[in-house]
């Protein structure tokens, strides 16, 4: 609501020409709108949400009309748009707050030592644990990272150091961008189709999930690594060449270490991005109640699939399983947040020492 304060000279000039609303006019309009809406809402017995909506409408109409009367039509339009921009920001953030609140509120009751260290094997009629799902998620994501990081990083090196402006590099860059838009379920179907043909029809196992996730992860790794490699100053490379160091050694010993901080940040963010994927794992990894630490054999549980299964097919104890789903959702969000924070910390930690 804070309108930028006009510079003193500007204000003086305006006061000669046109009457202006006071600087705190939006605030007054907001207070009046909320008060009027609350009064109306409380007499008619509305909830908080309708009161909020009506207050927003009152505010938009009130401030615009006020400005139109005191100022002019152009100023009124400007105020209307300014208000609309702020209203749209509020609308966008309300769901986020509501979502985080709901997950924390419903999920915190499920958290305890057993929840994190037991699986759901032979658990009937009582809360079990999500150890199997956490381990599954970690293993599958690790597999995805092991596949994606070398391919993604090497491809980024090719784009920056070797391909540069060649036709092939241009196509790779473009198609990598297109690949970021592949629906996650299509990646899952691809892994399923691939392993159906290679291993046998209907194969479901953990490594398939790794392959599916790496389809989603590689483009992110390539793009972020490419950006980081591009930032390495050409001086560093040239200094190294001048010393007679071969190009490949320059890349490995000078270019990549310099860009390391950014690359690690990018990889961590890519992991955070795919760790919550549900759809591909639902198809290629299946689900199980037991701990399965073998990526190459048997169905594997994962947190997102566990949340989905427990909430939509809770079986005979819906209350218990739904609570567990919320608890697992809370854990999943915490993992994603932790990865996001970790990305920043690692970025700082690995940034090249200036050495003074």
């Amino acid at each position, binding site marked *: 609501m804070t309108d930028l304060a006009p510079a003193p000279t500007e204000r003086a000039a305006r006061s000669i020409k046109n009457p202006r609303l006071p600087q705190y006019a939006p605030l007054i309009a907001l207070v009046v709108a909320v008060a009027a809406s609350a009064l109306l809402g409380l007499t008619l017995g509305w909830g908080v*949400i309708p009161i909020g909506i009506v207050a927003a409408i009152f505010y938009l109409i009130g401030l615009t009309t006020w400005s139109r009367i005191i100022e002019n039509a*152009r100023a009124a339009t*400007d105020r209307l*748009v*300014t208000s*609309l921009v*702020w*209203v*749209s*920001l509020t609308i*966008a*953030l309300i*769901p986020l707050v509501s*979502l985080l609140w*709901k997950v924390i509120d419903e999920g915190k009751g499920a958290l305890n030592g057993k929840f994190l260290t037991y699986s759901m094997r032979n658990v009937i009629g009582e809360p079990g644990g999500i150890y199997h799902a956490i381990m599954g998620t970690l293993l599958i994501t690790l597999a995805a990272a092991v596949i994606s990081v070398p391919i*993604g*990083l*090497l*491809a980024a*090196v*090719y784009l920056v150091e*070797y*391909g540069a402006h060649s036709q092939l590099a241009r*196509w*790779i860059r473009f*198609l990598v*961008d*297109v690949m970021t*838009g*592949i629906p*996650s*379920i*299509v990646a899952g*179907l*691809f892994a399923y*189709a691939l392993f159906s043909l290679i291993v046998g029809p*209907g194969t479901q196992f953990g490594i398939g999930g790794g392959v599916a996730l790496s*389809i989603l992860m*590689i*483009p992110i790794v*390539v793009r972020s690594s490419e950006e980081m490699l591009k930032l390495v100053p050409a001086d560093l*490379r040239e200094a190294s*060449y001048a010393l007679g160091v*071969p*190009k*490949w050694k320059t890349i490995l010993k000078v270019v990549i270490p310099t860009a390391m901080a950014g690359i690690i940040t990018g990889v961590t963010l890519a992991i955070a991005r795919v760790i*919550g994927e*549900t*759809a591909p794992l639902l*198809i290629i990894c299946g689900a199980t109640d037991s701990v399965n630490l073998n990526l190459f054999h048997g169905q594997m549980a994962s947190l*997102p699939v566990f949340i*989905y299964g427990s*909430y*939509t097919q809770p079986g005979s104890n819906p209350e218990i399983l739904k609570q567990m*789903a919320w608890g697992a*959702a809370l854990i999943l*969000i915490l993992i*994603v*947040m932790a990865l*996001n924070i970790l990305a920043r910390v690692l970025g700082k930690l690995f940034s090249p020492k200036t050495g003074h």
Partner: protein
Amino acid sequence: MSTVTTGTGSPKRRLGDLVFANLTRAAGLTILIALAGVGIFLTVEGIPAFGAGPDDLKGHSNLLTYVAPLVFGTLLAAVIALLIAVPLALGVALSISHYAPRRIAAGVGYLVDLLAAVPSVVYGLWGIAVLGPKLVPVYKWLASHFDWIPFFAGPASNTGRTIFTASIVLALMVLPIVTAITREIFAQTPRLNEEAALALGATRWEMIRLAVLPYGRSGIVSAAMLGLGRALGETMAVAMVLSASGVVTWNLISATNPSTIAANIALTFADATGTARNALIASGLVLFLITFVVNFSARAIVSRYEPGSK
């Protein structure tokens, strides 16, 4: 750049360079092969579905009539989501790039990115448990006052698990990507253009209309298309929120809703066997092709304008 390939002084090619250069090229080619592989393997596994009968296609006589309603649902949900998300994203992007004081803008940008970090399955939970029930009275009100509009014909759903609710959740999920791109483009508007508009006496909105929006038009279009690609392929939120029956209807608020390709796959894949799975994979191929075309065009628009902006 290096003396290894072009220099006259050292004609010998180092083995290390040869190996490393080809290794990186191979990695780049692997990505292209993987992309082609997605199309190829889905086609190979999808082909048997052309011979599928009504048993495997939920009563539909052939693959076309099986996929068509799903395509309809997918497009409907994605388009509604976009209609909600794009204006909202423009508002949010403008608030970050042109309205908020700098310190607040960074925080707000981070919060919007947080929306992108929430896993889709959690959006699904929130959609069923919070958004759906909250919208039931709205749907009932719409059904009783606006039932002459085909979209709100009713009868209103009692759980709120309608295609409209699913579209709102989808809108939230595409909001961050559309915001991120438009905000970047708005921030790139030449400062001189903005100041020229302001110097001519334009209000802030007139400045945005005259300088910022025309400059960012292609960016807005491609951001919207990338959002569309995301909304078309989003699976879990729709699979969980929507109570789908696979019909074709314009009614947005009733208990019988069209399904989407992605949601249909997620919901029925586990129980499907044999040719039914091939049919699902074939529908996945259709989804892949649709999103590929959408993303391809969006990126083509972006890359056309990229050299100028750099």
